[in-house]
Each structure stands twice: as C-alpha cells, then as structure tokens.
C-alpha cells in the first residue's frame, strides 16, 4: 500500500490527485493502478521500465528503481529527470 500522487496530466484517468494503492514495491503499485485506471501504466513506462524521462520520489528517496519497497505511509511522486551543472 502507498499514496500515489497522480501527475496532473494523468488525473483525467484517475479523476483524483491522490490514490491509495495496494502493493509493496513501486512496480506492484503501478501494476495495481493499471488495473484501476487502464492505460496509466503505458504513460509512465517504456518497455516495462520507468520512462527514461521520469524519476521517482519515494518518500525522500529520488530513484528510478521500480523495486523500491513502499509502506502504507509512503508517498510516490513521478517527476521529470533533472541534471545539474
């Protein structure tokens, strides 16, 4: 279980800005979301991996690892990848 913050551009699929979803890893959570909101996974994934233009914020961790484990209080955010100078 985790709290997923739905990117505004996907909210027409979910109808809401936040959803609580079952699953103990980010991948499980996204696959569960796909069941609830068909089509959302292909917006976030590319070849079964997180789209290379995206990164995850899982609580304070910035990661691209879909295996990152989550708890019911975990917040998941989908953000653009950033680079520094």
């Amino acid at each position, binding site marked *: 279980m985790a709290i997923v913050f739905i990117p505004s551009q996907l909210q027409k699929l979910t109808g809401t800005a936040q959803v609580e979803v079952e699953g103990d890893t980010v991948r499980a959570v996204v696959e569960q979301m796909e069941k609830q909101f068909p089509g959302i996974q292909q917006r976030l994934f590319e070849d079964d991996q997180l789209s*290379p*233009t995206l990164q995850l914020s899982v609580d304070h961790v910035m*990661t691209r690892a879909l295996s990152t484990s989550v708890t019911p209080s975990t917040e998941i955010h989908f953000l*653009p990848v950033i*680079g*520094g*100078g």
Partner: protein
Amino acid sequence: MSTEVAPDTQTPATYKVIGTRPVRHDGADKVTGKAVYTDDLHVPNMVFGAFVRSPHAHARIVSIDTSDAEKMPGVLATCTSADLPDPWDKVDNLGEGCVNYAHLSGNVLARNKALYKGHAVAAVAATDSYLAQEAARRIRVEFEPLPATMCVQDAMRNDAPLLHDELITHTLDDKPARPSNIASHIQFEKGNVDEGFAAADVVIEREFKTATVHQGYIEPHVSVALWNEDGRLKIWTATQGSFVVRQQMAELLKMPVSQITIVPCEIGGGFGGKISVYEQPVAAVLSRKCGRPVKIMMQRDEVFEATGPTPASFMRVKLGATKDGKLTAGKAWLAFDAGAFPGGVIGPGAMCVFSCYDLPHATVDGFDVVLNKPKTQAYRAPGSTHVAFATECVIDELAERLKIDPIEFRLNNAAKEGTRRVDGPVYPRVGLVECLQAIQESDHWKTPLTGPNRGRGVACGFWFNCGLKSSVTANVNADGTVTLVEGSTDIGGTRTSIAMQLAETLGITAEDVIPQVVDTDSVGFTDVTGGSRTTFATGLAAHEAALDIQKQMVEQAAQIWECSPDEVTVADGVYQGNGKSLSFKALAVEADKVGIPIVGRGVVDPQCSTNAFAVNLVDVEVDPETGKVTILRFTVCQDAGKAIHPSYVEGQMQGGSAQGIGWALNEEYFYGDDGHMRNASFLDYRMPTCYDLPMIDTIIVEVANPDHPYGVRGVGEVPIVPPPPAIANAIYRATGVRFFELPMSPPTVWNAIKGQTTGE
C-alpha cells in the same frame, strides 16, 4: 574578512580537519604551469583534426564532397555522419538528465539537415593544424537553406518551420496528432489555484524573457583519441565525467564500454557544459581511419556556436498574497529554448519556479521547444536561474505593494522542513530561513545605502543538488599515508575536500592523504562532477573507504597486540588494545611489516536531493545618462550544510555570483536576422573582468544535511541563481523602473529610464 559563519547555525567545532583550509594537493602543479590539461598532451605521432561547420541556421545537406581535401598532401582522413553507426532512438539516463542517442549522434555530425549555424557537418585530420583547417575549407558541402526559427514564441506557432518532421510532443497527457517544435510539455498542480487567487488581496502577473548565455569556461573543448589496431579506443579529454563520456562513446560508436578508456586530464572549467560529447567521437573515428592519435581542439567561436549554451526563455509568472503578507497561489507558464534537439532544462526549471516558498495552491506548465540554435545544456543549477528571475521579481513587487519589508515577506512564506513543494515532495530539514535571517544580521543589511541613483535588492535561490554514484579506493602506504584513488574530475579543489573527509574519519592530516583522479579502467563507476554532488557523494564514498580501512587496521592491531579485535578501540586516530596504543601512522608502519596490504573501498549511490538555498543582497548604482549599472556591494549567503574547506566553498559562492552578475547585466547571444551569432568571442560576449566587480562577501550558513555524516549539502550550483533578480530589484530601487528582461544591459536600462521620464 569576507566570510562570517552565521553563529546561530554554526556546528560545534569538534572536527580536526574539516573546516580547516589546507593548501590543495594539486596546487603546486597549477601555480607552476606543470598541471597537464588535455591540450598540453603531445602523444607520439599525433595529428590534428578540424571541423567543417554549417554557415546556415537551417539547411538541407544536399551533398558533401571530400575528394579535394583528401588529395592534399598531409591530409590523412575525413569524416562525415556516414562514418558514425546508424543511431537508434534510444533514450538513456546519464545520471545528469537523459539523452537520446539519435539526437546526440546528429548533433556530433549533422545528418541530412544542419540545424544551427556552426553545426558540425564534416571533419578532417591532417599532419598539422593549419593544414587541417585549410583542408576543411576544401571540403565542399552543398546546402539548401531552409527558413529558420530563432525564438521560443515563434517556434511554438503552428506555422513555424519544423526542425524535426516526426517530433511529437512528449507529455503524460494525450499525445498531439501533429508534429511540432514543442518537444515536451510538463505540468504540476497543487491544490486549487482558482481558490487560491480568489483568497488573495493582491495579485501580480508579469512576463519575462531571458537571453541565451554560455558557461564561458576558459578552456575550449579538446580531446585526443587513439583507436588502436586491437580495437581498443583511448581518449584523453576535458570532461566533467569520464564514465559518462565512456557511456556516450560506447552508444554512439556501438562498441562495448570495456573497449574504451577515458583519461580525464585536468579540466579548465565546465559548469555543466562539459558533460555531453562533441569532438570526442569525431576524433575517435578520424583516428580509426588514419591509424594515428588525433587531437581536436575547438576555437573559441566554435565553443560559442557549437557547444551547449543554456536556454533563452519566455516566462509568465503570477502570484497572489493576502494583506498580511501570506502567499495564496502561484501560476507559472514557462517556455525554454532546447536548441536544435529536444531535452533542454525545462524539467528542473518547472520544478524550481516556486521552490523557495510555501504555496498552498499552484500550477506550473513547462514547454521544451526546439529551434535553430545549438543544443542547450546545463549551466550551474540548470533552469533555476531563469525561473528565479521571474518569481523573485514578482515576489519583490508583491512585498512592495503590500508595504512589507522584502526579507520579512520572504520569511513569512519561506519553504522549510515539512513544506510541500508544488511538484509534490515534502522538504526535509533545509536552511532558507536561516539564510534570510543571516542576511538580516549582516553588516551589509544593517548599513543603510545612501546616495542618488542607488538601490539595494534581495533575492533567494534554490537548487536540488544530487547524490548519484561514486567509487573510491584508498591504499594505506608503508609510511602511514593514504593514497585516495577517485573518479571525480577535480574542477575546483574537490581532490582536497574529498581527501579531508577521509582524513577526518581516519584521524590523520589532509596532507597525509594523496588524492589521485584516475582513468575509467582504474576506479569504479563515478558520475559527473556536477549537480553539486562531488564533495557530498564522493566525499561520502571516501568516508566509507576510511571506515573500511579502520576495520582492517583494527584487525591488524589485534594481530600485532595478540588480542581480539573487540578489545581494540579507536579514538581520534589512536588505536588502543591490550594495554598498548599506536597512532594511525605508527600502526600502519607496523602493519606493513606483518600484515596483508590494507585497501579501503567506498562505493555509494545516495538517492536524495540535498536542497541548497542561497540569498543575495546587492547594492547598485545606475548612471541615469548611460544606463550602466555598477555593483557597489554584494553579499551572498548560502546553506552549505557543512563547509569542508571553507575557502573553496566561498570560492564556489563568489564564482557562481560573478556568473550570475554577468548573466544579469551583459551576457547574451546576440543573433542577426540570418540566425548567426554576432558576438562569438570573449571580446563581445561580455563576461565580467575583475575590474567590473567588487569583492564578493560570503556568509556560510551550516544547517547540517541529515543524509551525510559530516552534514555536507554541496555548494557548486545555487550561487548563480539569485543574482539576476537581486540586481533587478536593486535597479528598481535605484531608478523606479522594473525590469523583465535579461540581460539588463546599458542600452536596455537607458531605454527603460527614458521611457519612464518621457512617459512612453
């Protein structure tokens, strides 16, 4: 004294090495001219390469004829995009943002179309550099010029000439049917922005424009490539990240990384501009074709026209606040110039636009727009300087409208631990409030500014800072010194700031550590020197390596003292056990006689932002007759987390501030109607000289980063962010005119003042 460490945030001085100011390990080499930069290399049998570049901002390449050049005696090889493997549309994450290799390959050598003036079209290798340049002139390229588009608003129009026929806007939303120059559209939403603005007593919306600017490193891009008969490729180059160059080369040339060795030489500045490859693949192909090492060094105009400046931008920012000075809502519409290929810095720009404030309701729309300029790249806190100019000017205007002191207004709304950012995540412990308070406490703020045509401005800035991968190994020598082997190229003294962390952990002196930056075959994967990550992440790796060494030292001490390792204690680098006691150095000498070699290992991938904030206070004087702005006094305050080597932290703050001042006042790519850059030289691209600047006072705030054993946050990038808005706000107070465009060059300022007096 240029530095005050704000007392209320000063961490207890329990460190022996950290916080001191030792002479950098590579210092003697660099003040005597012995340090070896890439262009200083003379590899045996080396030849020289030169580029043929597009004279058009946008043109179809009809044909390329290299035959005349190849006939010239001394000309050894030529190269066009046909010599590069067919690229695939693979988007890869370089740690520092992502890259599409088809685009990268097309930027290295143009395929079918030249997309900007200076775009590399072909190259040649010859026995001397003059001959190479002459041969390049003999390569005949037939172009069919196409209409060019040079500014974001034009490029976004439906009728704009398309750069890429198949470019469909990347968005999480439904994809558009038609191709356009809009490479991507990102969006953030928090709360209900309409409610937010409805609750506001004052709402201000402004439009802002900023010009293309360049990182302006003094060392041009330069590489030497040697493609050996055994198929191994070795490249000496000036890069911020040798492993990332290896990764790009492997993809572009379709060869395994194991076949490529990147040797990072000393590097003459980068600031984000020396991460992407340019001349490296071309030098490699030329070397393969002629069987000799090939050096390619860009001339300064090539650096300006054909490497990666940072975007021009068009921005609209709207903020609302209540009478008592609480922000209620924000709205931002941002369009950044990506250059000729998708993948500009709009992502971080959109994430940073409101990052200094606690905004209950906001929306942000960001657009990445391709046009006929060189592919843009990161420049120190990429995207954040643009958006800070917009937001901090509107914040200043709100504060004025509400008759609230600009620092108090910022304090009322400052982001702090627990603040939810507009892009979603919640801040951990951060130091913006402490920076604002330190500025309020500064002598500068407490000293009133007097005199005509003078004004004082303030502004805040934010940058994420990143972690990413770093590897080090550390070998204990027989004399008790430690050789630290690392993969982070040292652009500003990081050898020392990393070595100091190893020394602190081991309880030895910084001088007893010998840091070495080595090639990609000699150390584990290490991400770029960028993202303000090097002292933080590679320092963390050095700390881990030190702990690893300490564990092995304890075991050896136990062996020597014939006791169990559990009985050995370590404090301040003194090892004790079985009634005996030895310093680290003494124990190392003993251990060398009896034990196996001691080698420490540190590998890290901290996955967090360390969240850097900076605040500027600046006094200016404006000559009302010429519009020229003089910086009278400048103070930069920044949360460093912990300043490992305060001198080099101040150096980053001062250097970043100077770049921000240049961006604010004079730096810009000046384009003619033909899409040609008119000022591609250090004479006319006006970076500040030391006669243009005052001393830059620094205040280091230390709000420890919870994710680092010594509290380091990283300091490299954020200081460039606040200067443009701080200076704009100061000029307003000096002249009564608000500025919405960068640079605020003398003609612009004079025009605005004139407009005001003549009521235009």
